[in-house]
């Protein structure tokens, strides 16, 4: 056979076989993964890692067979609808919703490391810390079910997060419940590994109900169920002041450029999002710090000083473990990109009260600070009126002449005629 064709045939055959074989062995049921980076950083021994895995399985089940304790407040039927492999029955009832719609980005464990994650900007959300950006509640509080429902239903503009509004109501409810399930599971994992840090080398974690449910799970579940109590009101004392719009915008502009609100630091003097962008969000910050820790350890190993050979061996092992975890279980850190406010695109909702809440509490998990009271009764950086002035100014930016000169000129020409 012609050599060129032979080479081509071999090449394509090998690549094709490799592609298909990559799928082989994936027939085993998917499993939840632990946060190996955090476990490596905390230097949790392998036996205790297995303990964590066993405890989590007992408390939350598996991706194909989930389980929830009553203390979580979750609806197991809704969770089960989203769990498991993709299927539907003769009546159109679907299961495996999470695997069909979400897992390819958010990952089986909800760690934001699905197969497509590396190619997406911004990265898919990692639910495990219980931190969510766009919500109606105080900064540190959990999102309400309605907040999650909104994001699932409407999607997030400018990102790969689709709108699932075409799905039946019950499926949206199920997906929201499953996100809460994964988030709670992730938070329990973090608390478990923290609990292990408090133990001495000889001690073993005692998986008692008192520890697992009363001390770890219940506070987490309560933070979710109490989210509704932390909604930032936009009426009463927080209502928009009676003020002429032009005056409010002018005041807001003043605040935008003042050191008090300091918006220009990140959003730039033109509000184009071209200010400082060297900060990380919480998810990337954790990975960045892990990388710094690793580099520090490597530097120490290169110049061990008076370390004993056992200490050096231990350090080398720690380095190898953390290095492997970062290579296989993390995405490259990315700095947080401030919003270009002149586009008129607001990811958490474009209603004035949405922006009010965004400014009041900031955006949890990101460098965007809140300018409202950090807790009820405490003074904020800005007063309520000032926050609304800022809202009016930001909402006016896309219509500012500098944002769209041609439209402004056409408007003037028509008026002149």
């Amino acid at each position, binding site marked *: 056979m012609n050599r060129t064709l032979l080479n081509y045939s071999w090449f394509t055959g090998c690549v094709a076989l490799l592609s298909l074989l990559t799928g082989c062995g994936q027939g085993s049921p998917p499993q939840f993964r632990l946060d190996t980076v955090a476990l490596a950083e905390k230097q949790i021994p392998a036996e205790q890692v297995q303990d964590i895995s066993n405890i989590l399985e007992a408390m939350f089940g598996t991706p194909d067979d989930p389980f929830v304790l009553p203390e979580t407040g979750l609806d197991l039927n809704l969770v089960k609808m989203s769990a498991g492999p993709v299927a539907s029955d*003769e009546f159109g009832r679907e299961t495996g919703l999470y695997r069909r719609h979400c897992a390819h980005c958010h990952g089986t464990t909800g760690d934001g490391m699905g197969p497509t994650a590396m190619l997406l900007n911004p990265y898919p959300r990692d639910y495990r810390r219980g931190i969510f950006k766009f919500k109606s509640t105080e900064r540190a509080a959990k999102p309400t079910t309605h907040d999650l429902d909104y994001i699932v239903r409407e999607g997030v503009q400018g990102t790969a997060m689709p709108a699932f509004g075409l799905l039946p109501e019950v499926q949206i409810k199920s997906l929201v419940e499953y996100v809460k399930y994964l988030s709670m599971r992730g938070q329990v994992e973090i608390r478990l590994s923290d609990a292990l840090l408090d133990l001495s080398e000889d001690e073993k974690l005692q998986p008692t109900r008192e520890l697992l449910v009363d001390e770890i799970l219940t506070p987490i579940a309560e933070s979710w169920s109490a989210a509704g109590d932390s909604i930032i009101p936009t009426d009463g004392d927080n209502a928009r002041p009676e003020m002429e719009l032009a005056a409010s915008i002018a005041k807001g502009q003043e605040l935008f450029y003042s050191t008090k609100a300091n918006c220009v630091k990140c959003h730039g003097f033109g509000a184009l999002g071209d200010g400082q962008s060297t900060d990380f969000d919480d998810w990337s910050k954790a990975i960045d710090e892990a990388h710094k820790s690793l580099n520090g350890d490597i530097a120490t190993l290169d110049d061990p000083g008076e370390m004993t050979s056992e200490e050096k061996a231990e350090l080398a092992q720690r380095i190898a473990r953390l290095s492997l975890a970062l290579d296989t279980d993390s995405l490259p850190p990315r700095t947080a990109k401030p919003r270009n406010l002149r586009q008129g695109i607001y990811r958490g909702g474009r209603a004035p009260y949405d922006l009010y809440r965004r400014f009041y509490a900031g955006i949890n998990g990101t460098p965007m600070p809140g300018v409202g009271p950090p807790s009820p009764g405490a003074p904020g950086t800005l007063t309520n009126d000032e926050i609304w002035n800022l809202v009016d100014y930001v909402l006016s930016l896309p219509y500012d002449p500098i944002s769209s000169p041609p439209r402004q000129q056409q408007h003037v020409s028509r008026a002149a005629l």
Partner: protein
Amino acid sequence: MNPAAQQLESPWPHRWAVALVCATFPMIWIGGLVTTTGAGMAVPDWPNTYGYNLFLYPWQTWVFGPWKLFIEHGHRLFGTVVGMIAIGFLASALWCQKRAALRWLALVALVGVIGQGILGGMRVRMNEVTLAQIHGCVGPAFFAFAVVCAVVTSSRWREAEAPTGAGIARIERLAVIITLLAMLQIVLGSFLRHLPTGARPGDFRLALWFHLFVAVGLWAHIALITFRVWRGFRDERWLRAPATRLSILILLQVLLGLGTWVAKYGFPGWMSGFEFAAAYRPTADSIGQVVMATTHVAIGSLILATSTLLAMRAWRLSSLAALANSKSEPVRRTLNTPKLLMEVAR
């Protein structure tokens, strides 16, 4: 026309083969729709449908029931239509064809349809995504095979004459390379569509980059073959038509590929400076998303089939050209082709 060809005049094998081609393409569409809409497990048993014999499942439930059931059960029913046509093709080949090669081709076609059906059935019974991947690759391969059957049973194949232009052997080689690349693209695309649950970010990225790399290679080869066909065989419509179609299809496919990505994942982050990109967000299960992805799959199969058609025709002309150059020798093999297939070229 040679005396052997005169004996093989019955048009029926060709008609059945063309019917097979025409029936297989919609099958690929429907199969693509099964995956796009997540209907692969809408019917959990096989070969029955919820306990009913495939043909006895209540048609009202099928037609007016859930969409996924409609697609999946419809896919199976249509598969039986393709199977019937393959039986018809085999029967006509046994009845009308003296050439053993063509009878074997028809038998392989029937075995192919049955095999594909079994693959689909096993995918369901074992709930195995890898089998879905393979099923998704065998379908287009069978489509290309059906095209081969239609081409070699055609009167034009029998009546073909050696081309006047030079360089037909190069066209043949290019066409074969394009066919191989098109098949590889389908395999890579199948991996991207049927992501293993445990796939890591690096796996998908690698497959995607490969998919894009091969797309560029495919486009370059198609551009080259179109150029060479138009330059050296402008009057040879038998080559010109499929080459031109390939050029149009690859352009369409690139656009569909980009559209599929945007419909599924939105615009890339570097485009966030453009307002339309910053404002856009995909809508899950929208008609646009479904149509874009499914059409991309179908056009990929069409590219494979068209390149196969072009390769077969180029091979035929190349063989005739070689024969014309050496009257006393038997048909010179331009490829190391099995003897069975060389019968087809006579």
